[in-house]
C-alpha cells in the first residue's frame, strides 16, 4: 500500500533538517493503569515513601549520566525533579489523600493533576511547559509503585523519534548518537526535548497533534527544524529537495568548524587575536572548541567564593595546571582576585561600606586587607608557569602607585619561591583599564606593564556615573558613548607608543557592529564569551582597515 505524502506544520524548536525512518516512543503503563488493591493507610504511606526514595536514587543516577553525555546545564533539570520529590506541599497533599483512604498511585495522580491544572492557568509559557517535569516525576513515582519502568528504547540504526510527549527521563535513556531528530505532539520551544535537541544540534519540531497515532515505526519522515515543517511519506521530489538541503547544511557546518579554528585576519592582512572570557575551569573546553586562541580573562573568583575556607596554594596550582593541560601553549591571562563588599567570601571580614563599588575591592582589597591571600594566589600563579602559559593581570587599578606596590609584592613572592628576576620578567604583567583615572594616565601606566585589558562594562559605569542595573537611568549606560570611546582610543595610543598591546574584555568586544570601530582604533585582542567567538572572527575577516575606518566614522567621538 502506498501512503500519501502528508505535510504538517509544527513549532520549529531546534534547527537543521533531518530525513530518516521513524521510531515511535510510547509511555508505559504508569499513565494508564490504576491499582485496585486497597491497603491500610499507613501501609500506603510507606509504599509512597519507598517509591519516592527509589525515585530520588534513580534521578541522582540519571543526573550523572546526563551530565556526562549532555553537559551540566541539561543535567540541572533533574535538580528540579529532586526538589519536587522533597516538596513539603506535594508530600502533604499526597499524605492527606492517603489518610483519607486513597491508594498511593491514585493519590499521586490526583495531586499531580491538581498541580498541573494550576500550572496551566499561569500566564508564563515557560512555567506552563514545566508541567512536563511534574509529569515526569509523577510517572516515575507511579512506575516505582506499580513496578514498571520508563520504556527503554532499542535502536539498531539512526531514527527520528516520534512521540506524544517526551520527558527528561525519556530522552536521557536514549542513545544520543542514534537519534536523527525529535517530533512530538506536546511541548514548546523551551521544553526539555527542545533544549536537548539544540544541545545535540539535531532538528526538533513540536506541537504536531496526532502524529504519534498516524505514523508507524519505519515510516520515512522529513523533519525541517528551521521552518517547523514535517513531511510523512515524502514523495521522491520532496525527498530530493530536502536531501539537497541536508547536504548543503553539512557542508556549511564543516566549513564553519574549520573557520572557527583559523586566526581572524582582516582582508588586508591584519590579525586580531580572538580569545575567551572564562569564569571557571569547565568552560575551558567549550572555549577551545569554539576556536579560542587563548583565554583573555580568567576570572579567578570561583577559586575563592562559595567555600568556608580560603583556597590553599596547591589547590590554585592544581586548577591552573589542569587548565594548562588543555590550553597547552595558548596564553591564559589570570586576573587576580577581584571581589568587594557586595559579594564577600564567607571567611573574610568585610567592613560595612556605603558604596562598595567605590570602595574596598579589586586590587585595593588585596593590597590593604588580604595581602596574605593575595600572596598565596601570586605564589600559585608563579608556580603554575611551568604547566600553563600564564600572564598575570591586576583588576581595578586606579593609580600608578598601586601598580608599583603590586609589582613589589610580586618580586618579593618570586624571591620567596626561588624565581629569578630573569624568569619573572618572562611572565607578562598587565592591568585592567576600567577606572577612568587609569585610562587617562595610561601613558604613564604603559611604562609599568606589558599590556592593558579594557573592562568596558565598568569603565562605562564609572565614566558616565551610571549603574547599568538601575532601570531609572539605564539609558545613560552606553559603552559606545563618545566619552568611553575617547578613553579607549587614548589607552590604545598610549600603549602602542610604548610598544605594549591592548585587549578588550568587556561586552563591547562582542558587539559585532562595533568591531570595525575597535579595529580602526587599533585594538589588538578581543576577549569574548566563547559562544561569540565564531561570529567575531567572521566579522573581522569581512573587514579591511579601509572599510573599518569608514564604518567607524559613523560613531562621532
Amino acid at each position, binding site marked *: 500500500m502506498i501512503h500519501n505524502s502528508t505535510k504538517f506544520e509544527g513549532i520549529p524548536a531546534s534547527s537543521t533538517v533531518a530525513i530518516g525512518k521513524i521510531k515511535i516512543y510510547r509511555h508505559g503503563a504508569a499513565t494508564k493503569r490504576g491499582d485496585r488493591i486497597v491497603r491500610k493507610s499507613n501501609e500506603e504511606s510507606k509504599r509512597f515513601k519507598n517509591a519516592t526514595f527509589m525515585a530520588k536514587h534513580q534521578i541522582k543516577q540519571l543526573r550523572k549520566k546526563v551530565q556526562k553525555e549532555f553537559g551540566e546545564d541539561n543535567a*540541572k*533539570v533533574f*535538580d*528540579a525533579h529532586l*526538589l*519536587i520529590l*522533597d*516538596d*513539603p*506541599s*506535594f508530600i502533604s497533599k499526597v499524605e492527606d489523600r492517603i489518610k483519607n483512604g486513597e491508594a498511593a498511585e491514585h493519590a499521586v495522580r490526583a495531586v499531580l493533576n491538581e*498541580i498541573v491544572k*494550576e*500550572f496551566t492557568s*499561569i*500566564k*508564563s509559557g*515557560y*512555567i506552563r511547559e*514545566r508541567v512536563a*517535569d*511534574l509529569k515526569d516525576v509523577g510517572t516515575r513515582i507511579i512506575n516505582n509503585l506499580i513496578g514498571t519502568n520508563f520504556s527503554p528504547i532499542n535502536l539498531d540504526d539512526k531514527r527520528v523519534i516520534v512521540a506524544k510527549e517526551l520527558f527528561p527521563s525519556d530522552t536521557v535513556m536514549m542513545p544520543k548518537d542514534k537519534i536523527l531528530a525529535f517530533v512530538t505532539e506536546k511541548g514548546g520551544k523551551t521544553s526539555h526535548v527542545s533544549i536537548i535537541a539544540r544541545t545535540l544540534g539535531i532538528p526538533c519540531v513540536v506541537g504536531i497533534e496526532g502524529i504519534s497515532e498516524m505514523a508507524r515505526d519505519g515510516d520515512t519522515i522529513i523533519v525541517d527544524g528551521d521552518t517547523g515543517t514535517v513531511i510523512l511519506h515524502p514523495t521522491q521530489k520532496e525527498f530530493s529537495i530536502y536531501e539537497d538541503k541536508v547536504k548543503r547544511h553539512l557542508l556549511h557546518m564543516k566549513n564553519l568548524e574549520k573557520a572557527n579554528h583559523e586566526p581572524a585576519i582582516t582582508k588586508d592582512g591584519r590579525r586580531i587575536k580572538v580569545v575567551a572570557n572564562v569564569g571557571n575551569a569547565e568552560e575551558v573546553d567549550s572555549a577551545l572548541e569554539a576556536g579560542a586562541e587563548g583565554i583573555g580573562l580568567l576570572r579567578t573568583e570561583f577559586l575563592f567564593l562559595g567555600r568556608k575556607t580560603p583556597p590553599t596554594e596547591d589547590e590554585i596550582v592544581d586548577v591552573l595546571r589542569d587548565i594548562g593541560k588543555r590550553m597547552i601553549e595558548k596564553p591564559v591571562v589570570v586576573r587576580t582576585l577581584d571581589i568587594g563588599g557586595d*559579594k564577600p567570601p564567607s571567611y573574610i571580614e568585610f567592613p560595612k561600606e556605603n558604596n562598595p563599588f567605590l570602595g574596598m575591592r579589586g586590587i585595593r582589597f588585596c593590597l590593604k586587607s588580604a595581602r596574605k591571600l593575595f600572596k598565596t594566589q601570586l605564589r600559585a600563579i608563579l608556580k603554575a608557569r611551568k604547566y600553563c602559559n600564564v600572564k598575570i593581570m591586576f583588576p581595578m587599578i586606579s593609580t600608578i602607585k598601586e601598580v608599583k606596590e603590586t609589582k613589589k609584592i610580586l618580586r618579593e613572592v618570586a624571591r620567596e619561591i626561588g624565581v629569578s628576576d630573569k624568569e619573572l620578567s618572562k611572565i607578562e604583567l598587565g592591568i585592567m583599564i576600567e577606572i577612568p583615572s587609569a585610562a587617562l594616565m595610561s601613558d604613564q601606566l604603559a611604562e609599568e606593564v606589558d599590556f592593558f585589558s579594557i573592562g568596558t562594562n565598568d569603565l562605562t559605569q564609572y565614566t558616565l556615573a551610571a549603574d547599568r*542595573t538601575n532601570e531609572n537611568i539605564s539609558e545613560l549606560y552606553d559603552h559606545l558613548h563618545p566619552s568611553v570611546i575617547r578613553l579607549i582610543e587614548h589607552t590604545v595610543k598610549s600603549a602602542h607608543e610604548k610598544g605594549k598591546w591592548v585587549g578588550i574584555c568587556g561586552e563591547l568586544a562582542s558587539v559585532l557592529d562595533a568591531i570595525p570601530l575597535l579595529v580602526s582604533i587599533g585594538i589588538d585582542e578581543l576577549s569574548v564569551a566563547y559562544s561569540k567567538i565564531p561570529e567575531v572572527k567572521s566579522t573581522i575577516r569581512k573587514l579591511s582597515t579601509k572599510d573599518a575606518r569608514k564604518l567607524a566614522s559613523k560613531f562621532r567621538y
Partner: protein
Amino acid sequence: MTQKAKVVVKNKVGLHARPAALFVQTARKYDSTIRVGKEGKFVDAKSILEVLSLGVECADTIEIIVDGPSEEEALYAIVNLINELKD
C-alpha cells in the same frame, strides 16, 4: 521578630524552574519559616511547586518574609540570590 524585604526580579525569564530551584534550595538551608509573595499571594518558599505557581516574571516585585532562627542571614542570602540571578 520577623524580617521582611521586597525585591525586584531582574533576570529575563523570572523565577522559573532553574532560578526557582536555586531559590528553594537556598530557602531550605534555613530553619526559619520563609514565605514569598507576589501581589499579596504568599506561598512557602521551600516548596518548589508553590514558588513556581506564583508565576514570577521579569520586573515583578516579590516580598520575602522570614521568621525564625538566623532570619537576618536567611533574608540576606535570598535577596542576594535574586539580585545575582543571571540571564
